[in-house]
């Protein structure tokens, strides 16, 4: 591992100011992804600014009925939190389907949002990768790409976003609060992430030294019966091939409202707006759900090894919506 300086600031503004001066520095929280990437030489920061004890480790009620999650809340604590389990079960389920008990106990909400792709070429420093080393090429484009993106990819990068939590947060319209050198701002999660385009080295729209301090969940009554379903190659402790987070509101057999997001299919958690628009106002029957899933995936552009993800995503989405409608 390349030598680095470890810095523990006294407060959030101090941490931000320290990192603002260090162009090759990064924030450290739980470290479960970052330390691994540093061991492999994929990331070689000069400075680590430890923020784990600076941001909040609490979950507060918001006046509008939503919840504010401190960035340092661990994945375990968040999944086990009573208000999350009852009001946003898809978020608990997403967290519990990710990583292992040991990792969830130290990985934080902020760190989970900013974890890097698990594309095997990104991790292998002997292979070209535009995300790791811009301009070197994408090894996955013509390589082993069974795990890669089917939506929104570019010729520069076909990696997927690895987080389960972020898929649920995307379906729930979470708002991410950050503190940076120029002050604070609130970013809808759909605007935190980005598609790779010509700059796959940028996972998010965050500027250097912007620190995630908390995540807000807006109130959403019908999220109390929401679900997360993940399909993977092992029963446990594996990244998603495809995942779906969804909440459905059905009244008199008609879909009133829906929130749907997909994981494992794109460079960012994929909000299924087309499917949501398609099911809204339609009968809550399998035919509508399948049509909605197919509408969402109409633009899918599979690679050599991942065409299976198109019907898989359609089937999981359809079944999820059907299960949610039958449970009402």
């Amino acid at each position, binding site marked *: *591992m390349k*030598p*680095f*300086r*470890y810095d523990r600031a006294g407060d959030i503004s101090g941490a931000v100011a320290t990192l603002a001066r260090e162009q090759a520095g990064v924030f*450290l929280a739980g*470290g*479960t992804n970052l*330390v*691994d990437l540093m*061991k492999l030489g994929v990331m070689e920061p000069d400075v*680590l600014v*430890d923020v*784990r004890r600076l941001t909040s480790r609490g979950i507060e009620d918001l006046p509008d009925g939503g919840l504010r999650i401190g960035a340092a809340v661990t994945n*375990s604590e968040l*999944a*086990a939190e009573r208000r999350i*389990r*009852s009001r946003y*079960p898809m978020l*608990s*389920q997403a967290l*519990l*389907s990710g*990583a*292992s*008990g*040991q*990792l969830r*106990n*130290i990985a934080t909400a902020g760190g989970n949002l900013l974890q890097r792709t698990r594309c095997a070429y990104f991790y292998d420093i002997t292979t070209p990768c535009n995300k790791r080393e811009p301009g070197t090429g994408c090894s996955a484009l013509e390589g082993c790409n069974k795990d890669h993106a089917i939506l929104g990819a570019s010729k520069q990068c076909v990696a997927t976003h690895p987080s389960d939590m972020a898929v649920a947060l995307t379906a729930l319209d979470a708002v991410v609060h950050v503190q940076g050198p120029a002050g604070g701002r609130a970013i809808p999660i759909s605007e935190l992430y980005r598609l790779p385009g010509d700059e796959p080295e940028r996972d998010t729209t965050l500027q250097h030294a912007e620190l995630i301090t908390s995540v807000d969940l807006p109130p959403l009554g019908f999220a109390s019966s929401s679900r997360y379903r993940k399909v993977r190659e092992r*029963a*446990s*402790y594996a990244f998603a091939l495809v995942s779906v987070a969804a909440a459905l509101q059905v009244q008199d057999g008609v879909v009133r409202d829906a929130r749907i997001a997909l994981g494992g299919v794109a460079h960012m958690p994929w909000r299924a707006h087309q499917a949501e628009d398609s099911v809204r106002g339609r009968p809550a029957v399998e035919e509508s759900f399948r049509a909605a899933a197919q509408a969402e995936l109409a633009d899918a552009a599979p690679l050599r090894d991942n065409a299976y993800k198109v019907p898989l995503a359609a089937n999981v989405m359809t079944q999820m919506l059907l299960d949610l409608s039958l449970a009402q």
Partner: protein
Amino acid sequence: MEITLRADGLEHRLAVDPRTTLLDALRERLGIWGPKKGCDHGQCGACTVLLDGKRVNSCLALAVAHDGAQIITAEGLASDSELHPMQASFIEHDAFQCGYCTPGQIVSAVGMLEEVESGWPSHVTRDVNAGEVSLTDEEIRERMSGNLCRCGAYANIVPAIREVAEGGRLR
């Protein structure tokens, strides 16, 4: 950098390179060899310790980031004269072959049962809203999925953990 670690009941003051993981600090600096270096990437669980009461992979934690932490390893679970019930149960059930993953399995199992006592749900819990967890074998397997055993002793690890859970013999 100077840090303090309270490991298995003893306080240690030590100077470490910032790159030192908690695992290497325990093994190479403090001579606590219970936590094992298996994959060194957080995938196998052989390095599992209780860090301030919670099971974590010590290979992915930087020692400098845990200055002042309280760490319990498999060696610290036992008292001077008596094995921890989880250790005794692993022996009783022959829940290992080569033994390399065993300290991590045992510490992880102890941490896992505390999580169950706190009512934490898991991926296989049917209703995440349920107040109590029924610790079925399916639950044990899911909750222990962060600990790999390449000898494949799982068939005996699950009953070893189940017996401790059923006997309420956590401590």
